[in-house]
């Protein structure tokens, strides 16, 4: 795997020139930062039907990668492959390889619990634990065998909350329930919680879809801050959001077969500005300009 490959969104089924364009793009660009995660020909099946087909993507370290596309295109499914949250859905099976620091996380020897420790996740709706704000942040570290003193834990909690731009708002009420916060604050608490056990990658599944525009902007700003330390992969159905925050954008589309099953596939994986101003693929262009259906 050369570094160039990490930016290549190749679709073996469709070789008319997409791979060519992609690799041209890669050589024209400066060398990308090393990929923190990458997927190689990932398929996801739900029961008998294929929900996502043949996705190869590279997620560069300290960049934000956005996955966008119409509903049913498998972008969320894809995201959940990256920390084996799909294991929780009994019918879901993942084929292909997902590398985290060059280790395939679907190897039989790999413990999904450990994967999730390294690859944190923030969910669609803010979901704080029904504990105090402090406990919310501390718990992740505790179960991961945090060995420091009470003072160390206090520091860790403060650091995580500061990182999530929430410390100032909650430092005087760490003992209150996480639910006492507003929606946007709750989501930032969830980010602090995800950050506390020091993951390397943060997955975010439509983290702002339950928030109002002001809280949304605040989370977006936070993501841009966080990418200094983390590799962030975000799913959003808000194109504008992807445009605003991400460095790279992957556009997924969906095929309907005769039985009404939807199969998502990767259409284009480009630097965000390029994808939203001059996308390589006609499907992308149609989607972002609303000529679609």
């Amino acid at each position, binding site marked *: 795997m050369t570094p160039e490959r990490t930016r290549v969104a190749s679709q073996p089924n469709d070789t008319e020139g997409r791979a060519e364009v992609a690799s041209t793009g890669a050589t024209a660009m400066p060398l990308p930062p090393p990929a923190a995660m990458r997927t190689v020909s990932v398929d996801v099946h739900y029961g008998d039907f294929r929900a996502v087909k043949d996705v190869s993507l590279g997620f560069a370290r300290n960049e934000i990668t956005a996955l966008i596309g119409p509903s049913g295109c498998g972008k969320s499914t894809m995201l959940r492959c990256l920390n084996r949250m799909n294991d929780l859905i009994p019918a879901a099976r993942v084929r292909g390889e997902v590398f985290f620091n060059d280790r395939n996380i679907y190897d039989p*020897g790999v413990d999904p619990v450990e994967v999730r420790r390294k690859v944190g996740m923030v969910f669609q709706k803010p979901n704080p634990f029904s504990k105090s704000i402090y406990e919310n942040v501390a718990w992740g570290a505790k179960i991961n065998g945090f060995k420091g003193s009470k003072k160390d834990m206090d520091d860790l909690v403060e650091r995580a909350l500061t990182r999530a731009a929430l410390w100032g708002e909650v430092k005087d009420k760490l003992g209150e329930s996480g639910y006492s916060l507003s929606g946007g604050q709750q989501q930032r608490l969830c980010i602090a919680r995800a950050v506390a056990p020091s993951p390397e990658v943060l997955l975010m599944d439509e983290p702002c879809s339950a928030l109002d525009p002001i809280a949304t902007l605040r989370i977006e700003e936070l993501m841009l801050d966080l990418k200094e330390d983390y590799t962030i992969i975000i799913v959003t159905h808000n194109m504008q959001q992807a445009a605003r925050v991400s460095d790279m954008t992957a556009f997924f589309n969906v095929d309907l077969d005769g039985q009404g099953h939807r199969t998502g596939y990767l259409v284009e994986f480009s630097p965000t500005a390029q994808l939203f101003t001059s996308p390589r693929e006609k499907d992308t262009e149609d989607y972002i300009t609303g000529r679609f259906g």
Partner: protein
Amino acid sequence: MSDEQVEVESASDPLQKRARPGEMAIRGFLFICGAISIAVTVGILWELGKEALLFFQDERVSIADFFSGTVWQPQAEVFGILPLVLGTVLISIIALVVAVPIGLAAAIYLSEYATQRVKSFFKPVLEVLVGIPTVVYGFFALTFMTPLLRSWLGSSTVGFFNVASAGIVVGILIVPLVSSLSEDALSAVPDSLRQAAYGLGASKLEVSLRIVVPAALSGIAAAVVVAMSRAVGETMVVTLASGAAPRNFTLGEDALFGYILNPFEAAQAMTGYIVVTASGDLSYNTIDYNSIFAIGLTLFFMTLGLNSLSRRFVKRFRQAYE
């Protein structure tokens, strides 16, 4: 030293699978807890089946007569279950006639009309009704309902032990069941449907009866069936109020409405027979002892059928809204 080794190892493959014995042990314990329920069912089927088999193996009993016989006289060694079933069914029907309109209308009122304050008064009342032991209802049937019926309709029409009194009280007993399950179903209908209907200019009645009730219909049906199953299995009221004599009859000879279906005469129900038989001095391995298991098995399958039916309704209801 060893710590260091572990660290080196984990550094080389931080994602390596770990053994978690505590987790496995807990998992095993929890599975056993779940499996106990199977043991209970197996126990019920096995014991009831075994004793019932002994009963049917007795030369004095024939299966065909058991299920078709209209006379139950253990003393005379005549075992036809229909009189007991008749008692059970009569009581259950009367109970439903009482409980369904009251329970359903109460549920509609609580779910659609009642303000929060009214609700906070009525709901605990209904819950108290659920909590009252059936034996107290039996007492109530005997000391209030029967005298009331007798004073209204005349003690010549209404026997001291009678089906109507038992049925009405069983009905009262299952009202809260019908109303709370129906109310659950009605409340589960998303508020957005009501809003939509109001938004179209519907009156409260139209919203309730033409949108909410149809939407909750399978949930309500499940409630009714569960209530019926409860009525069938109800024991104490029946034992105390409807008498200890099976209503033996002969089709064609006995007047259908005057006797066979007469609600004001006594009729022992299946559960009543079991209790009465068991509370006497019961010696094991007699035909009496075995007969209660045969009846119990029949009762078990009747309620099982009703419960399965109700679960099917519930499933349909859930599919619509989940």
